[in-house]
């Protein structure tokens, strides 16, 4: 009891400080371990997230000889992103933009339905903080023991346990930083190179950077990241409405809160026994009974804590529960309020998300593996030859996004009689150029087009370059122009 009242006094001191000063020192949060369904879900999500993060770089995927054998790889040196059997080029970066938009809308939708569950369960900050808190609890003991230890003078035991804790934190942080690097380079190779000192400098730099950030953010900064650094809590209220499910203290049931036995005919008392367990369990150190607030990450650990107390005091569970503001108001008034999942807000988010999914998946499936880009020479714009015909130079880039060499035909339309040669290539003029596009590569050619158009009234006329894959018949077109002197009339 004395410790709990100490919590209250600490909290009050903190609130006083906030009220009277511009700057308040952080009150260290010592979350109490709880057990219950929310805690079990949190563990399951945590294990799933970390398993994906740590294991994914080690998943192998055969793509052919001399191709990277890693399932998920963001290869910066060759500018390729591999995701299982999908291979993306820098030109496909807009897919990433689409994915981010999709992620944002999904986040909006989930928030409008069930509040900040992203923050409470899946956000990396929450996942690693949770993991670090568990290690802290296993080594230093639970809340009360840790508070007593920090308040007491240093002992050898404390020094040893703190050292051990920080050591394990750093080891996990290092593993985290190392796993990050493995998404950018071959995992088994870098795992060996790292220790033989032959890995690239960026590998050491970013491993160090992410080791440091993981250790500092999950070990030291914790809830301050959510409260002060993250923008999301600041505009979450734009997504929430009175139909959104959030972690809710049912004040109509709990108030007036009071300690002691509920006696027939005694003073009127609510179900809340004011034990402070919900505050003790909170990883961000807030009191959920004050209602929905900026710091609340919607993790539901206070629900588990409260349900225990409710069971012990012989009252119904769910004094703190998932509920909406509208239903709370209805319950208070003794009425029934249906759960409304489909409402204008969620419908808009759903529509936007469906549209984004359709656009993205269509674009991904229709994505051409054949790329053609043509850049006209700017100096000189055109060259007139001795016989009066005109020549224009073009830099042609042909990208082959497949894993096989492909024979391509490059032709030009809109310019009758046009002949092409490749600079410093075969000097014989051709109407169709045969180009071998090597697998997973870009061919750059300087193509000189000679023609004698009947007239060029504006000094230019549109032409189309057509690239055809002779093996598959797929083709792509690039619009360009052919230029000459204004008023050109066939060179005579």
């Amino acid at each position, binding site marked *: 009891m004395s410790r709990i009242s100490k919590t209250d006094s600490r909290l009050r001191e903190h609130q006083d400080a906030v009220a009277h000063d511009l700057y308040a020192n952080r009150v260290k949060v010592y979350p109490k371990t709880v057990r219950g369904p929310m805690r079990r879900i949190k563990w399951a999500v945590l294990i799933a997230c970390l398993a994906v993060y740590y294991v994914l770089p080690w998943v192998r995927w055969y793509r052919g000889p001399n191709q990277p054998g890693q399932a998920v790889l963001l290869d910066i040196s060759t500018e390729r992103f591999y995701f299982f059997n999908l291979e993306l080029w820098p030109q496909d970066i807009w897919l990433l933009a689409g994915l981010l938009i999709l992620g944002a809308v999904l986040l909006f939708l989930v928030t409008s339905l069930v509040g900040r569950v992203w923050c409470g369960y899946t956000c990396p900050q929450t996942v690693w903080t949770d993991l670090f808190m568990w290690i802290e609890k296993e080594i230093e003991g639970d809340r009360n023991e840790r508070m007593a230890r920090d308040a007491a003078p240093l002992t050898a035991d404390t020094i040893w346990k703190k050292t051990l804790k920080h050591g394990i934190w750093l080891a996990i942080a290092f593993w985290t930083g190392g796993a990050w690097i493995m998404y950018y380079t071959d995992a088994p190779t870098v795992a060996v190179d790292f220790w033989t000192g032959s890995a690239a400098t960026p590998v050491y730099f970013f491993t160090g950077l992410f080791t440091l950030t993981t250790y500092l953010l999950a070990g030291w900064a914790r809830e301050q990241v959510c409260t002060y650094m993250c923008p999301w809590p600041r505009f979450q209220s734009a997504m929430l409405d009175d139909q959104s499910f959030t972690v809710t203290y049912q004040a109509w049931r709990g108030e007036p809160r009071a300690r002691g036995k509920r006696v027939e005919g005694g003073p009127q008392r609510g179900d809340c026994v004011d034990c402070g367990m919900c505050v003790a369990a909170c990883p961000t150190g807030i009191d959920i009974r004050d209602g929905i607030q900026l710091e609340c990450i919607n993790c539901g650990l206070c629900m588990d804590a409260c349900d225990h107390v409710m069971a012990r005091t012989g009252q119904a569970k769910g004094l703190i529960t998932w509920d909406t503001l509208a239903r709370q108001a209805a319950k208070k008034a003794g009425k029934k309020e249906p759960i409304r999942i489909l409402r204008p807000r969620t419908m808009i988010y759903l529509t936007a998300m469906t549209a984004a999914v359709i656009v993205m998946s269509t674009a991904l499936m229709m994505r051409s593996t054949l790329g053609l880009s043509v850049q006209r*020479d700017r*100096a*000189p714009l055109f*060259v*007139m*030859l*001795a*016989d*009066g015909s005109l*020549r224009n*130079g073009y830099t042609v880039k042909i990208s082959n996004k497949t894993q096989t060499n492909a024979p391509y035909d490059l032709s030009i339309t809109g310019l009758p009689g046009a002949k092409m040669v490749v*600079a*410093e290539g075969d*000097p014989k003029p051709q109407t169709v150029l045969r180009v071998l596009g090597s697998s997973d590569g870009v061919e750059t050619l*300087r193509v*000189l087009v000679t023609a004698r158009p009947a007239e060029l009234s504006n000094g230019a006329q549109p032409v189309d370059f057509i690239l055809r894959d002779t093996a598959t018949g797929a083709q792509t077109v690039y619009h360009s122009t052919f230029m000459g002197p204004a008023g050109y009339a066939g*060179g*005579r």
Partner: protein
Amino acid sequence: MPTKIEKDSVSGRDTTGHEWDGIKELDTPLPKWWIYTFYSSIAVAFVLFLLYPSIPYGPGYWHGLLGYSPRKAVDAEVAKLQAERKVSMDKIATLSFDQIKADPALLEVALTKGKITFEENCQACHGAGGSGHPGFPALAAGSWLWGGKLTDIQRTVTHGIRSGDPAAHTSAMPPFGELGLLKPEQIQQVADFVWSKFYGHVTEGQDVSAGAALFAQNCAPCHGADGQGNRLVGAPRLNSRIHLYGDAREIIVSQVTKPRMGVMPNWNARLDPATIKCVTLYVHSLGGGE
């Protein structure tokens, strides 16, 4: 000036003694972390003074314990780059043009080096991309005076034209008008003939037979009976749509009367043979190469 230092009752701090219209200034100390950072910055500055070149004195300066010199660092960087380039440039110097063209990577190096060299040395007269200027041949068009094969271009670039180099291309067109070899009216007749026959600006009903006879006698030995030019003496091709000094009748008259003859420097005085090879390949690749 500070007049009266007193204790502020709210904060418990001293005032500075400054007062403006009843507003007093608190003597708030700088934060400790700021002071320590400031002092350690000064300390670090002294260490840097010792380590790096810093204090000048009379004839010299303190070189620093590390012996660092930005000039030496740049020299080392340049030497390193040159050593890297030397590998390719040595290959280009020894290999033939055909061998260079057979190696795509080496050809790319040569063309890039050639492009940069061209932009620095040749572009001023021959135009960007070899587009040419009046009096300076359009290299991209292939209107070669002295030949457009790789070896021809290499020779022209190396020794120049009328440059004074012993192996330079040299020729001179006689100043027919100035020396009185042709009378002014004869020059007009030749110009009429060349203008209609070779330049293609035909005037209906015009008789150019007198000019034709004069051309066959005086000009054809170098410029050819069909105006096809002669690369052995650098005589320009006349039966063309592009012309060295421009497409105008008065230019024909002025050239016959007192010809201008261009000079190109011999680049062997400024560029090494490998670089000349590179610029030759680049010029050849512009489209006019034969």
